[in-house]
């Protein structure tokens, strides 16, 4: 078992832009690290470099302290679960799982014992003699897992292993994989673009965008204290509302001007946030569940119009907007609207004008230019 260290690792294909750009990331021994990001951000590339399937353009990659930049995959002692599972079609489940051990030259009895142990953990015992073709998607996924765990490798690498499963199975396997990883306590790099997987499975989450690392933190930290506008907008479903506004720090409080309305924040805000000077453009961020629709006409409320209500059964999403605009879908209109997540069975209808309230501790500010969080201390 070992830790993994990306140190300024870069991958450039041909003369294109870097697919992975100076990635520095440390994964502790036994840690479950989730790599998330939108499609094409370099997650698979990072994983393949770690597996040794892709040459590293520059930077240093270490496994267990040893530099592995030029080490062949077979000498890295890492196990990988592919998105399409890549099971050997002409081998039985048992042979698939025992292949690496056979190559290593372990005895038949030893292989059989390890395969049976892994099969028991994965509940595959009754399928050991079948060919992959005769298995369901979920069973194939478990065989792919089995092939990885029988080896007791230095690290597990998984590339969207659940993306081919149906929603129910995905939920099941999510906790299954997390359980097995905790059981074996092997450093794991798990690639996904599903943020629920990112939130629920990882010890820590690394968010990538265009090959660049945006933030590494525990899932809750990423959610509560996103380092920038991109992370804020990527994590959460629906994502954080991001509204352009102006700040007017006053003597006793900070005034936030949104469109033609304004709310006021306690002055304490200036202590925890490095707010720019008066009149600066910033982006205000607030999670949908932190938007309260209040009847109150008191201070610090915004008057908004209900555009649309989506009932999701356990909750409802209320799309709100202000100003003229109407229900157009232009970008301008999007920045003039936001979503509130409220309890189910709401009584308002499109066209109603309601008041919303946001408690100051739930408000985030981002620099309008760079997108970086204005929370003091950066992250």
């Amino acid at each position, binding site marked *: 078992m070992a830790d993994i260290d990306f140190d300024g690792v870069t991958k450039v294909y041909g003369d294109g832009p870097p697919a992975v750009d100076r990635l520095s990331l440390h994964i502790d021994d036994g840690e479950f690290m989730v790599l998330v990001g939108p499609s094409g951000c370099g997650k698979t590339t990072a994983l393949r470099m770690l*597996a*040794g*399937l892709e040459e590293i353009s520059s930077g240093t990659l270490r496994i267990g302290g040893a530099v592995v930049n030029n080490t*062949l*995959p*077979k000498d*890295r002692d*890492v*196990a*990988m679960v*592919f998105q*399409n599972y*890549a099971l*050997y*079609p*002409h081998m039985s489940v048992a042979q698939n799982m025992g*292949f*690496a051990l056979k*190559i*290593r030259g372990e005895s038949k009895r030893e292989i059989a014992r390890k395969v049976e142990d892994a099969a028991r953990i994965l509940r595959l015992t009754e399928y050991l003699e079948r060919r992959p073709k005769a298995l369901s998607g979920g069973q194939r996924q478990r065989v792919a897992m089995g*092939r990885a765990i029988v*080896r007791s490798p230095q690290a597990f690498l998984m590339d969207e292993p659940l993306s081919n499963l149906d929603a129910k199975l995905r939920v099941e396997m999510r906790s299954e994989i997390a359980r097995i990883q905790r059981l074996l306590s092997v450093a794991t790099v798990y690639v996904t673009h599903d943020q629920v997987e990112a939130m629920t499975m990882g010890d820590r989450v690394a968010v990538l965008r265009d090959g660049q690392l945006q933030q590494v933190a525990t899932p809750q930290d990423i959610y509560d204290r996103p380092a920038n506008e991109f992370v804020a907008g990527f994590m959460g479903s629906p994502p954080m509302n991001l509204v352009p506004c102006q700040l007017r720090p006053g003597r006793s409080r900070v005034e936030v001007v949104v469109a033609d309305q304004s709310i006021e924040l306690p002055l304490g805000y200036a202590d925890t946030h490095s707010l720019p000077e008066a009149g600066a453009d910033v982006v205000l961020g607030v999670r949908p569940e932190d938007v309260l629709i209040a009847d109150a006409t008191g201070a610090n409320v915004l008057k908004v119009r209900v555009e649309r209500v989506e009932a999701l059964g356990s909750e409802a999403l209320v799309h709100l907007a202000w100003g003229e605009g109407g229900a157009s879908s232009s970008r301008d209109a999007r920045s003039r609207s936001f979503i509130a997540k409220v309890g189910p069975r709401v009584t308002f209808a499109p066209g109603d004008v309601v008041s919303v309230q946001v408690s100051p501790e739930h408000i985030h500010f981002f620099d309008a230019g760079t997108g970086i969080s204005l929370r003091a201390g950066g992250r």
Partner: protein
Amino acid sequence: MSVVTINGTTPIHRRGRRLSLRRRRQVAGFLFALPAIALVVGFIGVPIGQAVYYSFTEWNGLTSTWIGASAWTQAFHNSNLWTALQNNALLLLAVPFALGLPLLIAMLLHQRVVGWRIFRSIYFLPTAISWVVLGLVAERFFAYHGTLNSLIHAVGLTHVSTNMLGYESTALSALGITFVFTMIGTNTMLFLTGLATLDPSLEEAARIDGAGRWRIFRSITLPHLSRFIQLAFVMTVIALFSALFSLIFVMTGGGPGYATTTMEFLIYQTGFDQGAFGTAALYGLILFVLTAIVGVVQLRLIGSEE
């Protein structure tokens, strides 16, 4: 849905005259296949039947006389038949090369060695050329004043000269070598197609599992290619038994002596040189049975894997 009738039995489905789905599929399948069946029977079945009949006759092309089973016993006493069968058996030794070389070439091309596109065209070129032309080229290659000797002399071995087609001991080898080269293009293409259908992530998975090149070839690539190899094997053996004629005709004419006379060539000689069409039909049946055995055995092998 469950329906309970008054006396407690389940109602009988009124199937009437309607056939089961399976049965109807079979009928439809038969109807669709009927034109093809008619053609096969008309153009293959009937001639085979005729050949069986003529094999019991003495037939010079115009008049046939029934001579019965003695036609067969006589034929089996003819040493030329045994020579031809032996030549066919010896030529089978070329099959491993006609499969192995293309496999090697396909593996190299698949690794994208430098210039693989050009090589691919070069190897495939013979496939597009008539075997008669290939035979003529090969004849020039092996001839006493031909390319092979020029090459040997060019590397300094001026005292060595070969004339492979001129001797009974070597003519068949020369024919076998030519055959291997004519088959390289088709078989290489077949194997390249097979390799193209191999999921590259399987190889990557094997590499991560610790497999080296040789192990990947044996445990991943070869099993994947097995069907393609079987197909190439059948096609090669059948070509060897039934398509060598043009090469023999232009290269050796079956000689020297009967050294390169195969069953196929013997049929031609017996029928058209000696005018013994009855015996030729008999030989044709023997060749047909031999080829059919190869085909059936092979189909069994393929089928047994399901």
